[in-house]
């Protein structure tokens, strides 16, 4: 009986996974945390971003990111505690690298993963510039983007005690 038990325990961890190919990990490991770890090489300016935005974003997010039909990206800064809160990238999002991360993996909605890293930095810079979160001559890259202080950076409460781990 004990022999049978030992056999069962030995078989309890199947190990059917293959050691992942480092090239596969490198290609897939694209999510960017708030400190910007993993942001790729490349850079983009506000003016370059306006060109990308005009070509690929404005039809959904409106001139200057005012929204409609898709989410409003700008405006509403300082409105969150009012009777008419307006939640936008400018007014609500706590971390600038999240904007790069989301655009790179999910935008534009008709052709996600079509923008180059350069274009993604540029359009990120442009959106952040509309409400003056970055200057009109700003250039976003792996170093500058995580340093951007979003207006609502301290506007979140950890309801689950999740971050103290």
């Amino acid at each position: 009986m004990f022999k049978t038990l030992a056999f069962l325990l030995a078989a309890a961890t199947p190990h059917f996974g293959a050691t992942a190919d480092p090239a596969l990990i490198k290609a897939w490991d694209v999510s960017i945390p708030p400190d910007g770890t993993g942001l790729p090489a490349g850079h983009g300016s506000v003016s370059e971003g306006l060109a990308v935005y005009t070509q690929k974003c404005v039809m959904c997010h409106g001139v200057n990111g005012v929204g409609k039909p898709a989410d409003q990206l700008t405006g509403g800064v300082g409105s969150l505690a009012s009777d008419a809160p307006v939640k936008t990238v400018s007014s609500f999002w706590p971390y600038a690298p999240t904007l790069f991360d989301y655009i790179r993996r999910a935008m534009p909605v008709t052709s996600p993963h079509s923008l180059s890293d350069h274009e993604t930095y540029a359009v990120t810079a442009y959106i952040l510039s509309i409400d003056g979160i970055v200057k009109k001559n700003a250039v976003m890259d792996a170093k500058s983007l995580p340093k951007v202080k979003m207006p609502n950076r301290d506007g979140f409460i950890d309801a689950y005690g999740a971050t103290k781990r």
Partner: protein
Amino acid sequence: MTNKTTPSRRKFLKTALAGAGAAAAVPLSVKADEYVTPSMTVPGKTFTPYGMPSGHEEVKRLLRPPGISPGTGGSLSPLESLEGMITPSGLHFERHHNGVPDIDPKTHKFLLHGLVNTPLEFSMDALMRYPRVSRMHFVECGGNSGANAGSPTPPQLTAGGIHGLVSCSEWTGVQLGLLLDEAGVKPEGKWILAESADAASLSRSVPLAEAREQGILALYQNGERLRPEQGYPLRLLMPGWEGNLNVKWLHRIKVTPGPTMTKDETSKYTQSQKDGKAKQFNFIQPVKSVITRPSGMMTMNGPGYYEISGIAWSGHGKIAKVEISMDGGATWTNAEMPGPVLPKCLSRFRLPWEWDGKPVLLQSRSTDEQGNVQPTRAAWKAPVSVVQFYQYNAIQTWQIGADNTVKNFYV
């Protein structure tokens, strides 16, 4: 009572009532030719490889108008037309962020990497060889019932139209903890990021301890492989947790030192408070219930016997009790819970009722095994921003009128 969303059922009930009236007027006698119905006179149809509902049934998901792309938005389970605790797979609600991808399991890979000793990649064939667990659990969108939270006047919709972003299935798959242990999580690994292979790359962070203890990589739903709309060929299931983080079309989990703070866990799926702050990581779906019969948009059949019936659920565990009020919450009586009552699972409650035909404000209020109780709408709304609608779990009121109407109502 009748349901305006299912004309065939309404027709049946009218016919049945007419028949009953006729039977009362004349002596009951069944002729031989009425006994032999057409179905008894010819051989029936042959076998089918995959059965479908009767052609006489018109129960369907309620499709919301799509958003920015054809597959952005949702469809709702028709709760008012369903019974028991399991949602048929084809009627499970949908919430997609950029459509339903068509994924070939032969080429689909699942990558487990990050703060692990051995990053692993799995083919679907490899995952299918692992030992499996089966669990019955609801999945509820964090935005479910948001119409009642946001609309200043009660939206006149069916139970499913308001609350249908919840469904319940038997899910079968591989325990995530087993794979995490095979990869060997490093001590600094405290969270995971789960990423979808859809056109939104939908991603959510989950604390490692809970992911390891509770997470299931679901392969099957109600005995068959996952439906495409539910994440075929692989979805993360975190029982009782917000629907959005039960990532469908799963192809990557990264073990991380902290939350990745993706778009969906910062700009969406957070709870804005009146003071402008937003509560984050509202993982567990709160205790909730809704009476599905009678419910909004139905028409009562006049005074007489009814069975009140509905569903209750909580992300915190089992439902302990469901109470029913006929007077808008002034007095309560316990509903029957015939069972089974399972943790983090829809539970059916019932209560026989003799309606006297007078106006009623019908409510259900559920309590879970941890003592969490459904709040009133006013209590739910008091601390939150006017734009807040996620995780709305307030008591639903159906206003039943002497004119046999059943309407959504705010007390």
